[in-house]
């Protein structure tokens, strides 16, 4: 029964991805969030539980697991209990089309659909329903407002998102994520038909940020005005599910971004000496920060850690080049480096920027991003056709 | 560059539509658009001139319509004549446009002015570029229309309205002749393109009397447009329009179109038996020159002086062409365009300062508005043909040709030159010297936007003549020339003579109006009847009044009576009959037709009263009905 095998294989892969996300995405997503926010706000962040507070979020998860499930009276229990599942599942289903890298001569992807990015957007758009359901069913005006806000926001930002993705699809000539990555062997789409590629990337990132409800687009869950918006009423594991969904979605967006614009698992083909130079530069920065008075400035911790990462990378790279084997890094690693760089970027924005007003938000989407995206598509299409 | 020359008329045309539609919302309320178009054209024309000097010519045709077997082609061409005309039109035009910013400032219909001007420029350039009579005629009528619109620009003034009417009607007379001429040519030659026509002439297909007739008919158009005797009466009245209009249309370009037409179709005139047509042209021109000059002497309206001077100068050009001085005529056309535009603009500047046209009220303006004064003096010197200014060279050439071909015309031209110098300096002295005679006016120098174009034009008027200077091998002759009519050689004595005559004119004017040795009043008294004759402009208008207008009116009155009693009577009778018939029909209508209609209405109403209960107004009920209907249909389908 081949179909049974197919299903089993898919389920197995899905489980793998799920565990990865449940651990990395949710727990260490939260951990990263707290650490980075700490750095940016000149705090230390979690540090007591485990080394560097690494076990903090595990503890939190355990705590959440034991908590009681409260279903508000006069709430629509069925919908109330289904909503978190919708969100989480939709967020996890995003990952079906994300290629992690290559190993044993085949691409590590759950399923390489020939409509990959379309599938991704579709799944992302499913989330809205969950949020709306949650907002409505918890019978709480803050939640309802949050739900409505997020619905309007996501609907309006799906269009720029789609436009950004369409740009890539047009340039790559395919919708399959693997195909898109393969199409970037020549060079990242970020630098394709400059500066239009950059514009598309900016569009995509802005829309993605709004799509995952993060600052500066986090109106649906604005703690300060809506007491965390649509999941105000949720407790325990359901709350954790929302968190999982949110972080899964965010990581998914980051992964898609790295696939679309940063060449996915492909390693940037730069000459070796450049790598060495980069590594040394990073090392220099790190050393400077470490041994100068600046080390006390918490704000520079992320730079420090990034620099270390850079050093490691470039050192490995240089070694690899020295021993003349390529690819130097396993493609998986490249993928995660890029993905986490984007994740860091998103968090950075979150802790740097204030929140928009609803009208500003919608204006931005309809009056700026949408025309920009359309013009971008038009120009690129024109250029490609003329170039051909 | 040459191949895309057809864009030159298109630019002002686009400017016209732009200004018409967006008017005040455009930069400078449309002025800048028009000026931009003109300046671009000017640069373009210069480039074209450069290439034409290199000996390059160009021609392009498209089939416009096919009449029976004959295909009417329209197209454009670039040859020396066209190149020169292009430059004259665009350069003078753009300068005048710029000047208009200052002159028309604050006018309620400011954008419309520039729109009309642009339209004029477009038509004029079409006329110049055309390589066939058809397109040329299009441009010809276009400039006529624009002249009508612009003369009547201040149509609140009855005088302006009347003047525009007069100009239009008078030129129409000429245009009619021209149109007949064109048709004649088309019938005999079968094509309207100049090359084809010239071939026909050279091949002898068009020769003898028909040729002369065609040439003269065309010349009729030229007479109308260039205000030659006997159709010159419209030009003086055309001065009712704004001064830039007078400068551009009624001095520099449009009135020169007639001359251009004659020059363009010169072969027709030249080939007519023993130059018959040319002789006519020459004498009409000569007489016009003299007569207009004499009238110009007694005018008191500064612009009318200019107008008559324009007429006489156009007469000079015609004369020049007529006496086989092809180049001389064109040359004078070019120089005249510059210095007459200059004079007009200067006069405009004076009017701008004085708010009146009457010279007797002016005086002593030299101190108040020096720039205007000096530029105007340069223009006057150029006009009265004092070396080295532009007018000298061209006018001298014309006289030269006349001397060689027709002594009578030579003397006429010489007399004309004297009078020209006299009236123009009379105008200068009366306007600028002495003291201000009008207490009300507070003259002031005009803004730079008006004086700078004056200076540029002054520069041109001073120097442009040298392109025809003999000791540089007379380059203009080698550029624009008509090989059959060889230009006569430069003759110092004649040049000296014309100069002396011009100086004499100036001196006389000074004697009368500057030093006042001879008070002008006594002159008037002495001249007695001659003076009245001149003031009455040789009774031309009265003549037309008596010979054309009054008979027409008489016939019209008779016709009106006929109309009232016979035609209206017939119409009314028919009306009566039908009224009677309809009375009868009404009865039938009331009882039969209305009855039927009412019956239908009643039936419908009753039915509706019953059926309306089926109309629940709830869509779902209707949908249900539809569904049931579908079910029935399906059942029917299955059973069958």
């Amino acid at each position, binding site marked *: 029964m081949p179909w049974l095998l197919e299903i089993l294989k898919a389920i197995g892969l899905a489980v793998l991805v799920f565990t990865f996300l449940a651990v990395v995405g949710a727990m260490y997503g939260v951990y990263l969030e707290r650490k980075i926010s700490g750095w940016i706000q000149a705090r230390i962040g979690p540090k007591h539980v485990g080394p560097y507070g690494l076990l903090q979020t595990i503890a939190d998860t355990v705590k959440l697991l034991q908590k009681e499930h409260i279903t508000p009276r006069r709430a629509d229990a069925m919908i109330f209990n289904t909503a978190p599942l919708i969100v989480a599942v939709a967020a996890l289903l995003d990952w079906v089309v994300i290629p992690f890298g290559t190993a044993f001569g085949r691409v590590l992807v759950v399923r390489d659909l020939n409509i990959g990015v379309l599938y991704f957007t579709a799944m992302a758009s499913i989330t809205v329903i969950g949020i709306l359901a949650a907002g409505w069913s918890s019978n709480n005006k803050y939640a309802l407002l949050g739900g409505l806000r997020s619905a309007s926001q996501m609907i309006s930002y799906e269009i720029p998102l789609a436009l950004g993705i369409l740009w890539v699809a047009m340039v790559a000539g395919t919708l399959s994520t693997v195909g898109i990555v393969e199409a970037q062997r020549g060079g990242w789409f970020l630098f394709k038909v400059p500066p239009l590629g950059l514009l598309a990337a900016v569009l995509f990132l802005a829309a993605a940020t709004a799509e995952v409800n993060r600052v500066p687009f986090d109106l649906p869950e604005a703690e300060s005005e809506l007491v965390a918006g649509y999941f105000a009423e949720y407790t325990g594991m359901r709350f954790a599910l929302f968190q999982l969904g949110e972080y899964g979605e965010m990581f998914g967006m980051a992964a898609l971004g790295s696939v679309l614009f940063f060449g996915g698992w492909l390693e940037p083909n730069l000459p070796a000496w450049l790598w060495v130079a980069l590594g040394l530069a990073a090392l220099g920065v790190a050393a400077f920060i470490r041994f100068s008075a600046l080390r006390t400035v918490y704000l520079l911790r992320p730079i420090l850690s990034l620099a270390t990462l850079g050093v490691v990378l470039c050192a490995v790279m240089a070694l690899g080049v020295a021993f003349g084997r390529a690819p130097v890094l396993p493609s998986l690693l490249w993928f995660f480096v890029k993905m986490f760089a984007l994740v860091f970027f998103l968090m950075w924005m979150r802790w740097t920027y204030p929140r928009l007003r609803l009208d500003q938000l919608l204006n931005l989407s309809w009056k700026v991003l949408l025309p920009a995206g359309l013009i971008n598509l038009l120009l690129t299409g024109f250029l490609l056709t003329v170039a051909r | 560059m040459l191949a895309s020359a057809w864009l030159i008329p298109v630019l002002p045309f686009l400017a016209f539509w732009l200004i018409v539609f967006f008017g005040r919302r455009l930069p400078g309320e449309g002025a800048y658009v028009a000026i931009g178009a003109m300046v671009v054209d000017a640069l373009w024309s210069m480039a074209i001139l450069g290439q034409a000097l290199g000996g390059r010519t160009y021609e392009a045709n498209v089939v416009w319509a096919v009449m029976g077997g004959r295909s009417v082609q329209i197209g454009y061409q670039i040859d020396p004549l066209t190149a020169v005309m292009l430059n004259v039109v665009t350069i003078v035009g753009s300068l005048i446009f710029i000047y208009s910013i200052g002159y028309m400032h604050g006018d309620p219909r400011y954008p419309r002015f520039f729109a009309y001007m642009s339209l004029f420029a477009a038509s004029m350039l079409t006329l110049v570029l055309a390589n066939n009579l058809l397109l040329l005629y299009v441009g010809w009528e276009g400039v006529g229309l624009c002249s009508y619109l612009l003369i009547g620009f201040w149509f609140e003034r009855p005088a302006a309205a009347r003047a525009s009417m007069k100009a239009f009607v008078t030129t129409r007379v000429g245009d009619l002749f021209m149109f007949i001429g064109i048709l004649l040519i088309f019938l005999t030659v079968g094509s309207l393109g100049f090359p084809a026509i010239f071939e026909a002439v050279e091949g002898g297909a068009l020769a003898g009397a028909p040729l002369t007739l065609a040439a003269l008919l065309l010349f009729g158009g030229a007479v109308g447009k260039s205000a030659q005797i006997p159709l010159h009466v419209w030009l003086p009245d055309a001065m009712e329009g704004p001064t830039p209009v007078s400068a551009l249309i009624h001095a520099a370009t449009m009135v020169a179109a007639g001359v251009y037409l004659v020059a363009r179709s010169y072969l027709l005139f030249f080939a007519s038996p023993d130059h018959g047509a040319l002789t006519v042209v020459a004498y009409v021109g000569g007489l016009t020159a003299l007569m207009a000059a004499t009238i110009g002497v007694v005018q008191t309206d500064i612009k009318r002086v200019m107008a008559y001077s324009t007429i006489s100068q156009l007469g000079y050009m015609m004369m020049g062409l007529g006496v086989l001085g092809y180049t001389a005529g064109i040359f004078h056309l070019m120089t005249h365009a510059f210095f007459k535009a200059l004079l007009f603009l200067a006069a405009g500047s004076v009017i701008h300062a004085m708010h009146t046209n009457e010279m007797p009220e002016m005086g002593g303006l030299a101190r108040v508005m020096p720039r205007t004064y000096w530029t105007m003096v340069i223009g006057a010197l150029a006009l009265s043909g004092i070396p080295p200014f532009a007018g000298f060279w061209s006018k001298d050439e014309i006289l030269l040709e006349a001397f060689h071909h027709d002594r009578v015309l030579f003397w006429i031209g010489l007399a004309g030159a004297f009078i020209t110098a006299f009236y123009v300096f009379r105008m200068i002295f009366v306007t600028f010297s002495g003291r201000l005679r009008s207490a009300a006016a507070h003259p002031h120098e005009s803004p730079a936007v008006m004086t700078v174009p004056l200076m540029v034009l002054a520069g041109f008027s001073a120097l442009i003549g040298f392109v025809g200077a003999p000791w540089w091998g007379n380059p203009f002759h080698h550029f624009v020339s008509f090989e059959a009519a060889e230009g006569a050689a430069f003759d110092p004595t004649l040049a000296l003579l014309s100069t002396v005559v011009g100086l004499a004119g100036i001196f006389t004017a000074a004697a009368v109006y500057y030093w006042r040795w001879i008070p002008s009043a006594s002159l008037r008294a002495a001249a007695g009847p001659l003076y009245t004759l001149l003031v009455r402009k040789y009774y031309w208008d009265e003549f037309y009044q008596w010979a054309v207008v009054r008979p027409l009116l008489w016939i019209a009155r008779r016709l009106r009576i006929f109309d009232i009693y016979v035609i209206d009577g017939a119409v009314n009778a028919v009306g009566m009959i039908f009224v009677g018939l309809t009375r009868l029909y009404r009865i039938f209508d009331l009882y039969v037709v209305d009855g039927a209609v009412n019956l239908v209405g009643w039936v419908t109403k009753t039915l509706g009263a019953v059926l309306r209960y089926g*109309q629940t*107004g709830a869509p779902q009920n209707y*949908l*249900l009905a539809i569904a049931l209907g579908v079910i029935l249909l399906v059942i029917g389908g299955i059973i069958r």
Partner: protein
Amino acid sequence: MTVGLTHYLVTSSLLFCLGLFGVLTRRNAVAILMGIELMLNAGNINLIAFNRYVAPGAVSGQIFALVIITLAACEAAVGLALVMAAYRSLETIHVDEINLMKW
């Protein structure tokens, strides 16, 4: 036994009739819209199925399905806008209470 064209047609016809039922019986304008959406979906299933089984080579059915989806989106947008307007002016979205222009 393998799945054939008829299976799809059966499903779609059932879906269609459910939609029809909704359209006929609901009094909430939005609910009627939902019924219409169901019917449209049924139609789409038919199109795709026929395309797959009757003319596998062509993509006409899918094209039409896409067009219908687009039109369904338009219809939903306009219809819901109408509902909003009606609700704003009449405080109800129940079609049997909206009878301003009746008789």
